């Protein structure tokens, strides 16, 4: 078959128009500003019992105005295993090294298997991993958190000539307590059995009374099967107590002496 002039011209024009359309689309797509990404986190898919119930056509309460009317409920996936959150687990982990906040690694770790004896109502959906540009560290932890931090290995700060005798120790102890206790007084009650737990927090302060590095949990005591779930809240309260009442204002000459100083404090915290 041979094409005549009309057909060739028409085809060529069509091709030209198509090319023009494609390039126009491509270029205009390129101009769409990227949407701000939502914050990064692991996402759990939540199953909906309402799907099956709606299908059974029961008398129902009208949905609130905020919900879009959806006569055919989408089949919602079986909940996927929970993300590993920085929450207390049955055996709470104490981090002996300073850890100001959860590291980014848990966000993308493979999901932990949750025991799920019931058969899924519908097919599982993969986890979504949503990303935000990581926040600057300082804004999450308080403006003064990293002031004075140093990566140098631990060295005793320059010591003053003052001695840290019993009287000086008592007065420093009293001063620290006076300044911290108001924040401790505000801490909420926990369940019965939590009062057996003692958390020892090591606080390394700079001379302005601020934390030189994140507080570290030296040890916890009194944790047993009955009160284990309170260990993390007690740790949280101990940290919050100091942070809410810092910086401490204490005598400069007792910051660091050969016998010790308030630059290095072990705070033992418990709930009443």
């Amino acid at each position, binding site marked *: 078959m041979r094409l005549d002039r009309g057909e060739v011209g028409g085809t060529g024009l069509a091709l030209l128009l198509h090319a023009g359309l494609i390039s126009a689309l491509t270029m205009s797509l390129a101009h769409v500003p990227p949407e701000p990404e939502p914050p990064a986190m692991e996402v759990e898919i939540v199953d909906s019992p309402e799907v099956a119930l709606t299908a059974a056509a029961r008398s129902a309460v009208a949905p609130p105005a905020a919900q879009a009317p959806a006569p055919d409920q989408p089949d919602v996936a079986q909940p996927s295993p929970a993300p590993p*959150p920085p929450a207390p687990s049955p055996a709470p982990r104490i981090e002996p090294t300073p850890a100001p906040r959860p590291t980014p690694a848990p966000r993308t770790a493979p999901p932990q298997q949750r025991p799920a004896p019931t058969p899924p109502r519908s097919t599982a959906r993969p986890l979504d991993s949503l990303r935000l540009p990581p926040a600057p560290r300082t804004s999450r932890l308080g403006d003064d958190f990293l002031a004075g931090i140093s990566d140098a290995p631990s060295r005793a700060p320059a010591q003053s000539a003052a001695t840290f005798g019993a009287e000086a120790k008592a007065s420093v102890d009293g001063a620290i307590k006076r300044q911290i206790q108001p924040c*401790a007084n505000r801490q909420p009650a926990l369940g019965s059995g939590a009062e057996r737990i003692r958390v020892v927090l090591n606080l390394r302060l700079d001379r302005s009374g601020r934390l030189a590095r994140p507080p570290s949990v030296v040890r916890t005591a009194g944790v047993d099967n009955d009160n284990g779930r309170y260990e993390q*809240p007690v740790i949280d309260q101990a940290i919050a107590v100091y942070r809410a009442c810092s910086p401490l204002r204490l005598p400069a000459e007792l910051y660091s002496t050969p016998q010790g100083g308030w630059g290095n404090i072990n705070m033992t915290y418990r709930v009443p």
Partner: protein
Amino acid sequence: MRHILSAMAVVSALALPVAARAQDEPPPVEVDIVGGGVRTGTVVAVPALPVQNAPLAFGRDIATTIASGLRTTGLFTPLGPTGIPNYPYAQANTPNFAVWRSAGAAQLVTGFVQGRPDGSLTVGCYLFDVASGRELVRQGFAVTQATWRRAANKCADAIYSRLTGEGAFLDTRVVFVAETGPKNRRLKRIAIMDSDGSNLRYLTEGEATVVTPRFSPDGNRLAYLSYQGRRGRVWVMDIGTDNKRLLVPGLVQTSAPRFSPDGRRIAFAMSQGGNTDIYVTAADGSGAPMRLTTAPGIDTSPSFSPDGSRIVFESDRSGAQQLYVMNADGSNQRRISFGGPSASPAWSPRGDRIAFVRTGAFRIGVINPDGSAERILTDGWQDESPSWAPNGQFVMFNRFTPSGQSSLFAVPLAGGQARRLPTPQDGSDPSWSPLQR
């Protein structure tokens, strides 16, 4: 020999700075601090969540639901979402703590709602300790627009759990009997709702009087007592399919059903010849019921321990209603209540307490499974039918008034004010579901 000496020299040279460092570090100052144990609410700010690609109302509604969930625990004083500053989507996890410090908030809840192309929502939530700026909770959930409340309740649960150490309990449902009408012509229907009163629907239409509905451990079935056919018998209903069947076929009168923790058995009471005893049978109806008690008199209201190995029940074999514990095969029956007549026991899902009704005064109390540490929690005119939250921290019950009104209430195990659950009509015989999946 020379090699040994030089090795020792090297080792001591390395050790010297360590030793010197150790000598440089005097022991820390030791300070003992005791917390306040404050029982008034921790102030938690819950601003409206920013929303993308979905109606803005979701952000407000989710924040409102989180705030009310936290308020019902009795442990928090939520701020907002109305009347407090909002924040933009991009700052969901980088809040301005100074604002919240000056508002007096100890804790801050932030998050976001993102509409997805298929119409579903992704809801994220964070919890920050305001004083330290630490992020304590980070959770995300994918839900349909119709089930946004699940995300809000799971967020509130994560926040509550992190701050108290207790298990979750807000993402749950309640099944109960909705009642209307005069005392002698009461219309009773089985109703199911979220534990905050939302999403109420009826599962029966009142064609027969129904009482004491109880959830199965997987939340998919109910066992209840119906007077259908002019005799009280236990029925088992599949919530999803509406299928109902008699637990024990035939005409024998059965009552007081409770599922075992593995969902495979149902313990119940059977009445015949003037005697009521406790039996257990397969929940799927297979096999024959096994009799557990034989004492003359009334043995009823069985409730399994959370490990399924024991059953607490009430018996009047001593002359008055008292609590007894036995092994799940009926052996080793022993009385545990000695503080006054006691009935309607319910074993906590944590296993550490048994809730019951102190008859006579009709108050809800708790007792340890060994019978120690009895404590009365409520003070209504007639409080009955205790049912535990899945975290063992709250007991739901129904409260009658002399005029015949009946409402659902919940009281914390730690004691304190009982809080009413909103229902459109009167309600009785509540049963708290396990945590939803």
